[in-house]
């Protein structure tokens, strides 16, 4: 029982990060139809933004700065690399995001070296024991911030006019234009939100572990799997998907396959894509034409 609890508590913050990164993919994909593989590296920008800000701000302020910096870089990426290629099609745009990821990583490395970096947790103190398992205080913050981001996004998409307009773009871009929704403005909002969500959660994670320049790529791939589990559409299921990935990874790590945890996660991705291309969602989203 205690082992199970510990497994759960270890997987929870990791799953929150994978889920948040998955959500970052989903937000951009819903709006534009493209896959932004730079999400992981943009999250790392957020983490480093927080590291820098932590020199002058308390941890919570530093994490907010992290969110903003990742959001800004994400928007810059849209205007510098994605928008100019709007006539080239989604495949070209998607491939370019891989290049942007590498560029961002290299730029961070020039400024910061390879790391690792850390800053103080929001709440100081020893790890907390829950039902025989232990969890860092900061990890609880990671989960809280992820849930808060989810609630905020759900409210935004379901209750606000701008959020509904974003959903409308995802459903039918042509019709969205016809009712007077500006697609560039909506894409800007989507990229800003995507970057901010990825950035805030990874920044929140920094105090309980470390952040290194190279962390983005592997994190981004796990976020990608989470997004697939969410059918690249459903934000809630993407978070659940992130948690499932973390469970599998944690199980693999404590079993005999310790060194092969990533291999197991990615093998599962392949099996999953074959068996359930729609992820955890009930059905593939079909468009009536």
């Amino acid at each position, binding site marked *: 029982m205690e082992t199970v609890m510990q497994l759960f508590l270890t997987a929870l913050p990791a799953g929150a990060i994978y889920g948040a990164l998955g959500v970052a993919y989903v937000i951009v994909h819903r709006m534009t139809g493209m896959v932004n593989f730079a999400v992981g590296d943009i999250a790392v920008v957020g983490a480093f933004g927080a590291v820098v800000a932590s020199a002058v701000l308390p941890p919570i302020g530093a994490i907010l700065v992290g969110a903003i910096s990742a959001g800004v870089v994400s928007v810059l990426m849209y205007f510098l690399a994605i928008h100019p290629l709007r006539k080239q099609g989604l495949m070209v745009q998607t491939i370019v995001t891989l290049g942007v990821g590498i560029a961002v990583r290299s730029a961070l490395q020039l400024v910061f070296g390879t790391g690792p970096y850390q800053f103080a947790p929001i709440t100081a103190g020893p790890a907390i024991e829950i039902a025989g398992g232990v969890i860092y205080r900061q990890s609880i913050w990671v989960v809280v911030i992820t849930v808060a981001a989810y609630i905020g996004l759900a409210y935004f998409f379901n209750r606000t006019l701008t959020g509904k307009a974003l959903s*409308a773009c995802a459903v039918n871009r042509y019709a*969205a234009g016809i*009712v007077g929704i500006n697609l560039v403005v909506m894409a800007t909002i989507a990229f800003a939100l995507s970057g901010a969500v990825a950035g805030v959660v990874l920044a929140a994670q920094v105090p309980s572990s470390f952040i290194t320049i190279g962390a983005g790529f592997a994190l981004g791939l796990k976020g990608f799997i989470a997004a697939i589990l969410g059918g690249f559409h459903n934000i809630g299921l993407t978070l659940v998907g992130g948690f499932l990935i973390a469970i599998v990874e944690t199980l693999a790590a404590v079993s005999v396959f310790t060194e092969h945890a990533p291999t197991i996660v990615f093998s599962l991705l392949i099996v999953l894509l074959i068996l359930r291309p729609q992820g955890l969602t009930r059905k593939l989203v079909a468009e009536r034409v």
Partner: protein
Amino acid sequence: MSAILRVSNLRFSYGRTEVLHGVSLYADEGEIVTIIGPNGAGKSTLLNVVARSHRLRSGEVSLGATDTAAFSQAAVVKHGCVLVPEGRQVFSSLTVRDNLVLGGFTDRRANRKRLMEDVFSVFPRLEERSAQLAGTLSGGEQQMLAIGRAIMSQPTVMLLDEPSLGLAPQMTARIMAVLGELRERNGLTIVLVEQNAHAALELADRGYLLSGGAMVLEGTAEKLRADKTIQHVYLGASPDADPVPATG
């Protein structure tokens, strides 16, 4: 009376293929104007350029006294000109209510509740289905929703692209009747592109025949109904039929 919509010498190309060769038309306030013509004549393209779903490259489109050359799609809607596109193009995975709300996207200060009540009074069916996803509606209901969504932007000019497409004759009659009502009630100007020339010419005050990217005929609906070519090709009369407006 001055024209509320005026299109002058409009040209449009897909790549190197010019599909509109200098088309001109106008619509006066409160008028119903129809554009009929064969498939591929450029009717949809024309409406899409006016609504700025397609870029305006050559020619002029003005709304009232305002030249729309520099207008974005949103600006055209804000200036009271809205497109009800071919194939309805509702937001299928959003609710009927959200579809309507988004119709009023360009005017955030508008009284959306009152506008929606207006739409529901025209289409009571939409009120019954307001919580349903738009994709689950029937073709006719989706057409009502597409028109309702357009009403939400408080237009002065409504461009309709083949509203009768795929609808049963009864539903087509209902939609046409609603268009007439909207003109009476709101003084709406309507530009109606139709394959169903019969229904369109019944409703319209004036009409144009667009063929091969050029206006080949224009005049009052009565005149067009009496035209031999139109009777033969578009109204399904035999070549030697009596040139009297077909009815029924």
